[in-house]
């Protein structure tokens, strides 16, 4: 797409760093964010451009650092439960699940089967929400505002399902250590089916308007390619890796919850550009729709939803450490939990996929990108800043 050999600019200094002299008049510093439509959430990217080409990019975070990991060190194991979901707004349930699973593992709690089915259901519902938000954002970054309106509408239908199941729309606080809060409400499956049909129908429209769209293709095909070789060096997971042809998905690699009982194939792509990533996510969304149908059909009708807990006001967990992961819409989400025998976690470390995607990987990918593609490129990595700074 570019005719000049842009790798000539800027030149490198003998020590390998870029020779960027801002006073030369050749370069311009440009901030995208922290308030900017082309940025995902509260973060900023500091771009150095030469003409319309980015020669260096730096990701700046810290705009919503709330110190959750530290705050949890002075909360009891149950008191941590309401705050973990706040580490990721669009898909909070992975925090609840990973935290709960880590606590259960170290405390030696057996979670009832029913709770595992409901947990899986919630995680897939959250995945759909997250992808719907992404699709709107990806299209929006390239000027297709209408897609965002459609996906927001169907996402709202899913939020309604969340509301009736969990009692809240955004921060569900439903998966707590020991199980889940309650069973499915009466008639839930039927209402869910209606929502799923609406989502499928909307996705059909999205496919026609966004994916079979000459403009969208022109802006995304061949742009923002992740080389398969980077997958390990940059810790790339989720659709970003799968679009590069690396069939990496925790749901298959280390099946958790009830995934072993569900029938599904991984969604992968091969071109690894923005278009391929968007397409992988769209198809993964349809996979989630299918998984929800499977779950609702296969799950038991009755059963306990909570394990017997000790009195949570003074719940102590023996010394130990563990790491629990799950596959969220952006990749591998995990909780590293260290306990020391007291009633409080010793250390909680949240591994969000955006951590590497939006810093190390993005800073690498943005070099030589056209400035008009930066927003689409960043969105295509599907990053959520709160999980970077926890």
């Amino acid at each position, binding site marked *: 797409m570019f005719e000049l050999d842009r790798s000539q600019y800027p030149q490198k200094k003998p020590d390998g760093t870029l020779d960027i002299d801002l006073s030369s008049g050749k370069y311009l510093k440009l901030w995208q964010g922290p308030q900017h439509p082309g940025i995902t959430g509260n973060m900023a990217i500091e771009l150095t451009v030469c003409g319309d080409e980015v020669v260096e990019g730096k990701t700046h975070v810290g705009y919503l650092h709330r110190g959750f990991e530290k705050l949890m060190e002075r909360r009891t194991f*149950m008191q941590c439960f309401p705050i973990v979901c706040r580490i990721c707004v669009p898909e909070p349930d992975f925090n609840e699940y990973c935290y709960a699973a880590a606590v259960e593992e170290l405390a030696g709690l057996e979670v009832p089967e029913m709770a595992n089915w409901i947990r899986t259901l919630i995680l897939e519902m959250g995945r759909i929400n997250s992808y719907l938000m992404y699709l709107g954002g990806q299209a929006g970054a390239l000027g297709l505002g209408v897609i965002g309106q459609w996906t927001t509408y169907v996402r709202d239908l899913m939020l309604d399902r969340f509301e009736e199941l969990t009692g809240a729309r955004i921060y569900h*606080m439903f998966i707590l250590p020991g199980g889940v809060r309650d069973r499915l*409400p009466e008639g839930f499956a039927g209402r869910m089916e209606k929502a799923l049909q609406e989502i499928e129908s909307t996705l059909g429209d999205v496919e026609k*308007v966004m994916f079979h769209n*000459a403009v969208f293709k022109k802006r995304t095909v061949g742009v923002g390619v992740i080389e398969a070789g980077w997958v390990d060096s940059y810790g790339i997971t989720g659709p970003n890796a799968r679009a590069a042809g690396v069939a990496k998905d925790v749901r298959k690699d280390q099946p958790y919850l009830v995934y072993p009982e569900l029938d599904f194939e991984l969604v992968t792509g091969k071109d690894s550009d923005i278009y391929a990533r968007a397409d992988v996510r769209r198809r993964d969304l349809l996979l989630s729709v299918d998984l929800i149908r499977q779950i609702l059909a296969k799950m038991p009708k009755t059963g306990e939803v909570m394990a017997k*807990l*000790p*009195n949570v006001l003074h719940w102590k967990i023996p010394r130990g450490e563990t790491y629990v992961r799950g596959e969220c819409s952006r990749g591998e989400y995990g909780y590293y939990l260290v306990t020391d025998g007291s009633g409080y976690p010793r250390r909680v470390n949240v591994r969000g996929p955006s951590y590497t995607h939006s810093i190390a990987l993005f800073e690498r990918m943005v070099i030589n990108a056209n400035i008009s593609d930066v927003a689409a490129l960043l969105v295509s990595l599907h990053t959520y800043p709160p999980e970077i700074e926890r």
Partner: protein
Amino acid sequence: MIRDVLSPFTAWKNLFREPVTIKDPLNERPGSARYRGFHQNDLDKCIGCGTCETICQNGAIDMLPVDGVPAKLGDSGLRPRIDYGRCCWCALCVDVCMTGSLTMSNEYKWIESDPDKYLYMPGVDKKHWDNAELGYRRHEERHLSPGDRVDMPELHAEERIGSFIEMVKGYDIAQAQLEADRCVSCGLCIASCPAHMAIPDYIKAVRNGDYERGVQLLYETNPFSQVCGRVCTHCCESACAARHEGDPIAIRWLKRHIIDQVPQERILQLIGKPAAPTGKKVAIVGAGPAGLTTAFDLARLGHAVTVFEAQAAGGGMTRYGIPEYRLPYDALDRDIAVITAMGVEIKYNHRVGTDISMQQLETDYDAVVLAIGLHQGRSTRIPGSDHPQVRKAVDLLRQITTGEKIDVPKSMVVIGGGNVAMDIARSMARLQMQQYGEIRVTLTALEDKAHFLADPVEVKESIEEQINILDSRGPQACVIDADGKLLGLKTWKVLSIFDEDRRFAPKYDPADEQIHEGKMIVEAIGQMADVSLLGDALTEKLEWNRGRIQIDPNGRTSEHWLWSAGDCVKGPDVINAVADGHRVATSIHCVLTQQEAKI
């Protein structure tokens, strides 16, 4: 390629579509049935235990007094106020609520110009969602703290009825920690304990396995932990927050567990040495819980204490009234040994009034405490109750303790529905079992089963031990044949016990008459103090109140040198006697040190 140019135009079809937005979301969009909206609190159900405040990780909840909600036993009178600037609607407060009073409505809209209005006291600040039927409710079970009490290992009825071996085995460490874990440390129990023991703190000591700390906490308020750990009337458990949806914490058994875990020598070290001698002398009449608690406190403060006890051993009613299978004598001995180790001198077999007079005590000591208990049984005064085979429960229990030979009847009837009646029935049943291999004890009570005065556990265990319990039976006469031999007890059905003014005036149905066979009849209808030891002069001088010596709130009688404590002035109850002992000791210490100051 052409397709990619044309395909996006399909978006135009939406031109003909209705909007999907909700026209009037303020009215058309109620929250879902489980929605975690604004709080509701049922003020009558709420007990102000503050567990919601404890679990709130946002620090959003305050506990505050409310007009018209007085503090009473089992209810602190406080109610939660939520700072909606902090609340995150996680509903842990609802999940942990001990009574289920706190819930959430499905209302989620609240507009206010004054931010302070969002310091919101659900149930008190009236809102339109107060009675909302939809909204978040806790799952049927309270999941966040276990509701069931850890079962106490006990001897089975068959194992225990042939002997006086203690039937309650006591928790082991694992069981005790599980039970202690259930406590939410709200502290509602403290007010209901007559001695105001530091209950949540000593339960915490069990949880932490820190038994030495536990012993120290026990001795701060109660030198009779062996006794109270076994036979306390545990008013605390009836104020326990956990009782509302589950079993109350086994506070009594946990107390016993603590004292069981620490060796006697270590207990002595833990409670330390008495203060330097003050040179003051105090005499105490009666070595029961009240007298010995007074003695213990005063001895710790450095006063020289002498206790005069008519019987050969200490403990008073706890020894001579409570059967061994409930309170083994060696447990009682351990409590008393700690008290004597504090320097308290107990003169056994010294009956005041016979061996030494009250006047003498008045002259020889700076203060005298009368803690003589209730050792005289009351009589029904029904015809035939003067028959030699009609006995008083307290006398029989004392005989059993001292090991006197008792002529055990093959069949007998007990009159009374209180704990003493159960004690004598069960003790005699054991003796019958030992001697005859079968039990024939009938117990008749005025009250119906729902209003029995005895502890429900006692009733249950008595039935297990084959005691034939008959409720609503009023004793009419002891049936004696021509030879003067006792045949049994005649009773009528009780119609009512009290009249309209709640005065004791039982009404019977003479048509419903029964004769209960028994070669012995035991009256267990109450006790009174034997005040003959006072002597005429002192009896005359003292002020009285309905047959009891009149005392002020500190236990001081109308005579400046004489205090009285325990059952003889307060009615029968161990923990009350202990509390009374502390009160009197404090009062005496105050008076003695003030005298000092005057000199």
